């Protein structure tokens, strides 16, 4: 076997020289590379900060109003590329229309240009909560640290997010920071009580809940949590009482969220208008809903939903002639709309054209046999036109669809009493009274019983 030869001194020196040379060359390259990187940073970074390209958003297929606000936002950042406000507003606009990546990019630019603006960290945090939780947490922290004392929502959201992610110590700390500022801070009381309950410290959570039980923004949730806490502590009666209280309460109102509300102003378009109109109608603000929907039907005249809601809003205001007109327009665009027919019948009944309402209701019922209101209104129309036997059938059908429909029990009970059918009338009205003990009409009918 051939032996390996040891290198001579000369060769050794040559090898060492070569290595040193290579090392020197490497250093030179390193120096050049570092220099280039520095030049790059000096030149490119300011350039990129000076003229960041706004994201490409395809707006052609969007609702024209949505396309308009997006283009306006893009225009603002083109005009004021160094403005954190412009980038932040663009981020918020894009967030609402689910351009997630582009929105995050815009918020990133906003942070660069307005590093102390809590709004953009907050909205950016909300944007990433679901799929980038660690980034979201960091953003929410930044927002909470920068928000003024008067705006507590970033810290509330941060604390809630920490709770959800099973980081109870950090969550508790954030809730306690809110409580240091306001010991009766309802959202913090509720949140901290939840954290303690989850840690098996139910006894500690009950006194904490007190302020939250009274605040309309938290009281339903607080009563529900209280019920769960009592139950786990074996206090079943107290738990059931809290459940009953919670059930009797309306949904909690929203905690003030000025950053979100401000950002939501860029929400426009048909969907937004209809959602807003629905919310107004649900809260009994039919007059405002009419104004909004008049504009909506002007902007989107071929959309049936706007006409339907307008008709419904008029009906709520008992302006049945206008309601009928809007609902006829709705049905022109949506011929098989059971809800449209149902509301049209309400407008017609409101004008005391009882016989005319019956075929409209029949048509609607063929489309939606499960709707209690259709049966009940048919019953009412039949009573008004003297068709009492048919009315009874319709009321019974309404109750077959929904055995909780107090109006149908009441109307059927009334009908039976008028016919002298006291026994069944009493049963029916008692059923109504069980469901709605405070209902004045039920009480007055029950008083008529011999």
């Amino acid at each position, binding site marked *: 076997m051939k032996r390996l030869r040891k290198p001579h001194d000369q060769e050794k020196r040559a090898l060492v020289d070569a290595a040193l040379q290579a090392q020197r060359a490497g250093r030179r390259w390193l120096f050049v590379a570092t220099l280039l990187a520095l030049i790059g940073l000096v030149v490119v970074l300011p350039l990129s900060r000076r003229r960041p390209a706004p994201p490409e958003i395809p707006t052609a*297929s*969007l*609702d024209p109003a*949505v396309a308009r606000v997006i283009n306006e936002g893009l225009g603002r950042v083109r005009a004021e590329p160094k403005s954190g406000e412009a980038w932040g507003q663009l981020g918020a606009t894009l967030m*609402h*229309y*689910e*351009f*997630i*990546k*582009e929105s*995050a*990019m815009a918020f*990133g630019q906003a*942070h*660069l240009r307005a*590093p*102390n603006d809590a709004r953009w960290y907050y909205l950016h945090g909300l944007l*990433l909560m*679901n*799929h*980038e939780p660690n*980034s979201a947490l*960091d*953003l929410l922290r930044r927002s909470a640290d920068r928000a003024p004392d008067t705006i507590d929502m970033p810290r509330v959201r941060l604390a809630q997010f920490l*709770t*959800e*992610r*099973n980081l109870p110590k950090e969550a508790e700390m954030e809730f306690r920071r809110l409580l240091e500022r306001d010991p009766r801070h309802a959202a913090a009381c*509720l949140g901290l009580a*939840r954290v303690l309950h*989850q840690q098996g410290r139910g006894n500690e959570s009950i006194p904490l809940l007190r302020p939250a039980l009274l605040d309309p923004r938290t009281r339903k949730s607080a009563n*529900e949590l209280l019920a*769960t806490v*009592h139950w*786990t502590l074996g206090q079943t009666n107290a738990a*059931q009482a809290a*459940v009953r209280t*919670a059930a009797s309460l309306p949904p909690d109102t929203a905690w003030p969220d000025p950053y979100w509300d401000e950002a939501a102003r860029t929400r426009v*378009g*048909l*969907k*937004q208008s209809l959602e807003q109109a*629905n919310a107004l109608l649900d809260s009994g603000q039919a007059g405002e809903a009419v104004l909004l929907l008049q504009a909506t039907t002007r902007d989107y005249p071929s*959309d*049936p*939903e706007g006409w339907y809601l307008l008709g419904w809003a008029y009906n709520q205001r008992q302006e049945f002639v206008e309601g009928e007109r809007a609902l006829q327009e709705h049905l022109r665009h*949506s011929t*098989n*709309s*059971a*809800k*449209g027919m149902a509301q049209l019948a309400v407008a017609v009944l409101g004008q005391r054209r009882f016989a005319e309402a019956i075929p409209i209701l029949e048509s609607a019922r063929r489309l*939606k*046999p*499960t*709707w209690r209101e259709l049966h009940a209104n048919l019953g009412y129309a039949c009573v008004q036109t003297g068709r009492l036997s048919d009315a009874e059938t319709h009321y019974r059908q309404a109750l077959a*669809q929904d*055995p*909780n429909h107090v109006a149908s029990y009441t109307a059927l009970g009334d009908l039976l009493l008028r016919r002298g059918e006291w026994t069944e009338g009493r049963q029916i009205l008692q059923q109504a009274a069980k469901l709605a003990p405070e209902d004045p009409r039920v009480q007055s009918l029950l008083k008529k019983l011999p």
Partner: protein
Amino acid sequence: MPARPAICASTLAMAVCISFAACRPTGPGNPAQTQAWFEDVTARSGLQFVHQVETSGQFLFSETMGSGAAWIDFDQDGRLDVFLISNVRPSSSNYNRLYHQDADGRFKDVSAGSGLESGGFGNGLAVGDVNNDGRPEILISEYDRLRLFLNKGGGRFEDVTAVAGLTNAHWSVGVAFTDYDRDGRLDLVVGNYLDYDSSQRCRDPRGQPDFCGPQGFRPTLIRLFRNIGNSESPTPQFEDATVSSGLSRAPGKAMQIVCADFNGDRWPDLFATDDALPNRLFVNQHDGTFSEEAIVRGIAYTGMGAPAANMGVAIGDVDDDGLFDLFVPHLTEENHTLWRQSARGYFRDVTAQAGLLNLPWHGTGFGTVFGDFNCDGALDLAIVNGRIRRPPAGTPKPKLMPGIEPFWSTYAEPAQLFANDGRGRFADVSAGNPEFCGEALVGRGLAMADFDNDGGIDLLFTGIAGPARIVRNRAPRGHWVGVQAIDPSLGGRDAYGAEVIMRAGTRQYWRLVQPGFSYASSNDPRAHIGLGSNASYDSILVHWPDGSSETFPGGTADRYIVLRRGTGSRSVL
């Protein structure tokens, strides 16, 4: 306040992080196991079913509901057969299909002449022997009706809905059989969804037409139909007990029903997942009535006190404490929820602790099951996903399952699989299971069964306007036992509601005999227990649906056994 450069640097880093995150392909996470658990055997099994839906192009909400799947041994030959439904007009030529599993393990379409070859806007399925003749019936929940098909033997079924008194014109999805009054006859629970108006049109935030969500539609009632049939007549008879039972007092928007004993009194309770509303738990009061107790028992809301888009439900004891837990998947935009039963009858959201919160990726989950797929003694988790709304702009498109209608491909998402580490913590093993999780579909139904009786749990799943698939379990497995719990006095039917508690060494395993869970589907009624390294078990305790308990002796693993009520030793609890 930090110095300006530091802020810029960290902000830049964050922006870079976001941009990388956006580039990262979304989809199931990292594999934790080396060999895939499932292989797709659809083609060689002979199952050629493509779910049909009448896609109107008008984004009708009812089109997104999908349809479930059912395992049913309709001819009692010991091999599970398959029944699959579509969501089509009753007059359609695309009808529901019954597949018989032959001795060679292949599925043959035996729909013709079976009495089941009709269409309908089918959503959910329940399987149960309602007349105690030993043959399981099929119940289909549809958009506007129920249909009960009586199993007459010889592969023939008869629609007896009307004569049985099953009237429900509401849109129903999840349905389940249970003997809530312990009279030996299976009653029917119908999860009605919401009062939908098909003329309602909805849009996405950008103003483009899209499917509606549940908001804005009125909730409906869960219907309870009490079985009042008698032994003289094979035709079942039901009476509507919705009002008398008290179920009418709590309307909701039910998606899936699970019937199990939630409070340990050995009476079946009813749990409903409710879409965007608090879930409902009706606790049996032993007198034909129920009390709604979801809030106090911690299962109405997520741990944050918020309702979610609760769809399917998986039931099983994931942490081996002898108490079952529940997993309910929600929307892509939400986090799924795992409720652990921490004390008898009380549930706690442990999603984060179980490693199921803020997953690298998750979809809109519908069908979901707990099953010990590798028989290591811990229940694993499978979910099929499919969106109900168009995804946000720029969402990466997953690889599609071939055969899905193009319209629906926008809503397709891959399925997911999670391995339980034995302590109730889950790891996403989807990437290692491409034949179950690799191709996206608009997933809805998911039903598990050991269809080839080899001890491994197999999966059958369905998607809207796409092919149904069967994936066969080929996981390296530990020991196992399959238990069929039957009651000879009730025609030998499966004892729905029975709890099977197997003891092996230092461990005990809890299983429920009840095929109604997941989403709109019916599963293998047998209890399957993975034993890990235990080649035998010491004893089996069975709590029968009538409230009695019996203990059966131990035995050797890796086989199916039949436990007959009345043949064990009486257990006094």
